[in-house]
């Protein structure tokens, strides 16, 4: 019934049984072959764009609100030389678009960046706003080697930004020279200006201690049906900078070399897609997916278990979820705060000041959500993490409501006692639906309540789904 340290469940519908393993023959290049090489020009902008497309600035799509008017160069501000790039960040209500961002693209076939270890530039703001994203490797084509850094706080003086290249040896032909995206989230909607200068790739030599991660650095476990797929998520890469401070970027999957421990169960491609290929042999139905960048092993893994189950998911990073009304009904009588949050690249539900709370999925206030017919399901799966000490007397009670809010509705509950919970650690529960005492039927489930009566104030939930074994 209970397993420890399990998280991140993945189940997809059974699609087929055929499993084909293809093994390629690899041959080296003949000595007579001259491999094409591309220019290694480091500069992107000095006092003018260097080797970029005629557009210079290739905006995100105005249809999604990107403002194409706020980009220019400025001869009155420069970190070095005469001219800088000027970006006027619009207000959310600007008729020309409520945020600004886009890419700079190499005008040729791409550059060879294997000799560099970082993209660097100088930036200065009219105020100490926070820029959402800087990066490179996005070319609006494949974005295969995209790297981004989030939430860079501006100074009103020039400061240098360093964006490390996770594995420069991969960048033999890169067109995506630069990317930025900025809004007014940090300024309460007030527009501002920032300037950028001396934008180039550099070989600093002062970046060290690389620490790649997959799955946010966590060792996760999931179940999946054969012939289904799940992406490797939580891909981040941290290095220590010349000032002794860590720099963390989001790294595209193609920077990683992924491995599977058991090719009879699962494979993983260079885009980080894990596919369950078969049920395994000799009773071993698990495979461990790991990764590395430039020979440095990534922290975190996914142990995937090939299974054969049917699922209706309320909350999951990777399941197809049914539409729900909310992850916190915010009833007048409750004190509970919180809902779904992003945690190291994983979506989880976290509640604080918890007394009781509902996840509703019955069509509240005329929404599109529909009650769930779980007649064919046998279990509720749910991961629970207590984000505080577990004391004797603590409990978590889950209650399911059939025909919620309707006359004749029934409900049943199941209580987990303190001995089954762990402080700050995920615990996985598979609760038979027959154990929800009092639940009259389950053809129209409309709400899942979580109740602690204040015995546990801070609680996280993940991977909430109904399932049955095939």
């Amino acid at each position, binding site marked *: 019934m209970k397993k420890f340290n399990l998280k991140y469940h993945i189940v997809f519908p059974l699609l087929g049984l055929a499993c084909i393993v293809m093994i390629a023959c690899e041959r080296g290049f003949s000595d007579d072959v001259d491999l094409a090489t591309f220019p290694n020009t480091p500069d992107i902008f000095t006092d003018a764009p260097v080797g970029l497309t005629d557009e210079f600035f290739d905006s995100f799509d105005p249809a999604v609100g990107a403002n194409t008017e706020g980009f220019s160069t400025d001869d009155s501000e420069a970190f070095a030389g005469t001219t800088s790039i000027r970006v006027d960040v619009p207000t959310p209500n600007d008729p020309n678009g409520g945020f600004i961002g886009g890419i700079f693209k190499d005008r040729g076939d791409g550059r060879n960046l294997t000799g560099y270890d970082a993209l660097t530039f100088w930036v200065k703001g009219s105020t100490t706003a926070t820029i959402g994203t800087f990066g490179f490797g996005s070319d609006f084509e494949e974005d295969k080697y995209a790297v981004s850094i989030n939430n860079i706080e501006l100074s009103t003086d020039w400061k240098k930004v360093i964006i490390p290249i996770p594995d420069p040896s991969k960048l033999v032909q890169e067109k995506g020279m630069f990317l930025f995206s900025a809004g007014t989230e940090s300024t309460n909607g007030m527009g501002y200006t920032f300037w950028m200068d001396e934008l180039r790739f550099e*070989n*600093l*030599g*002062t*970046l*060290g*201690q690389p620490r790649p991660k997959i799955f946010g650095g966590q060792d996760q476990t999931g179940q999946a049906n054969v012939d289904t797929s799940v992406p490797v998520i939580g891909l981040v890469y941290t290095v*220590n900078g*010349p*000032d*002794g*401070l*860590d720099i963390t970027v989001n790294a595209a999957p193609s920077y990683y070399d992924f491995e599977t421990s058991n090719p009879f169960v699962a494979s993983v491609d260079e885009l980080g897609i894990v596919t369950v290929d078969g049920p395994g042999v000799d009773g071993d139905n698990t495979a461990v997916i790991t990764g590395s960048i430039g020979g440095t092993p990534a922290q975190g893994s996914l142990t995937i278990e090939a299974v054969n189950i049917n699922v209706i998911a309320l909350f999951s990073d990777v399941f197809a979820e049914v539409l729900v009304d909310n992850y916190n009904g915010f009833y007048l009588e409750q004190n509970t705060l919180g809902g779904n949050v992003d945690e190291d690249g994983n979506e989880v539900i976290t509640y604080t000041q918890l007394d009781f709370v509902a996840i509703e999925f019955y069509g509240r206030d005329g929404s599109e959500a529909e009650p769930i017919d779980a007649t064919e399901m046998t279990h509720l799966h749910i991961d629970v993490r207590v984000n505080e000490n577990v004391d004797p007397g603590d409990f978590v009670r889950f209650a399911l409501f059939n025909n919620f809010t309707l006359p004749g509705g029934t409900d049943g509950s199941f209580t987990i006692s303190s001995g089954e919970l762990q402080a700050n650690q995920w615990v996985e529960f598979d609760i038979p639906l027959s154990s929800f005492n009092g639940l009259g039927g389950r053809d129209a489930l409309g709400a899942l309540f979580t109740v602690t009566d204040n015995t546990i104030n801070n609680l996280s939930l993940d991977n909430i789904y109904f399932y049955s074994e095939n």
Partner: protein
Amino acid sequence: MNIKKNIKLSTLQWCCALLGMGTIGVVAVSCNPDDTQVVANFNTITMQDEFDVDGAPDPTVWGYEIGDGTAQGIPGWGNNELQYYTDRPENVVVENGMLKITAIQEDFEGSSYTSARILTQGLFEQQYGRFEARIKLPWGKGLWPAFWLLGNDCAENPWPNCGEIDIMEYLGDDPTVVFGSVHGPGYNGGDSVSKEYRLPDARFDDEFHVFGVEWSPNRINYYVDDVLYQSITPETIADEAAESIDDSLLDNAGEWVFNRPFYIIINIAVGGNLPGSPNADTVFPQTMYVDYVRAYAAD
């Protein structure tokens, strides 16, 4: 033994002198045509530990300081350091051709960290010469490794009078910088004579570098690899002592005390006045790798 070290770092000056160091013999080239540098030649090897035998460090060369300094009368080793020094293989061992000194975060004898400090006191002591070690350093806030020399008469002639020559000190949150210092009467702690050396395009925690001094009767030259970055003379320290009003009241303020045998110390301190405490980003354990330690004397 080293009581207080608040290092005053002088401005990094690029000395235009580069040394060819294929041999141990030394040539110094001055930045300024009016300067002349006196350089000694140290060609005779007097001590050499290549750390080729696995296990504990060679007991004929190395001993240990144990504890948190309380037994020595200086809790926190005089600097409010946080580590407890041990001689356990977890903290100090020779493996794969290297000496490894490892700082570990663990509760041990009332301290939150363990580490090691090894020394050649009573086993190898030498007056003048070239002292060098090839080292890869740890990293992270709160780590404070050092390769240094201490006068062999500190028991009778308490620090700073017995003299201290810090060949290499480094703070783990400044991974491109090392510094070299001397401490003595009227020039110690925050008023030591000290200078930093910064790698322009590399780090000290991901590759080995050679740290050395060449110590002659009236001069101590400091090197990182083949770069001479500091040259300390009796005049240098007299000037430093003169700037320190309190200490200049001492009878011997500014005295050149580097004219007796010194012994070698290698350690990693954790926390303390100079580096500050480790923080949440500090990764433990942290290891200092020493490929070799060598000493040379004049012909």
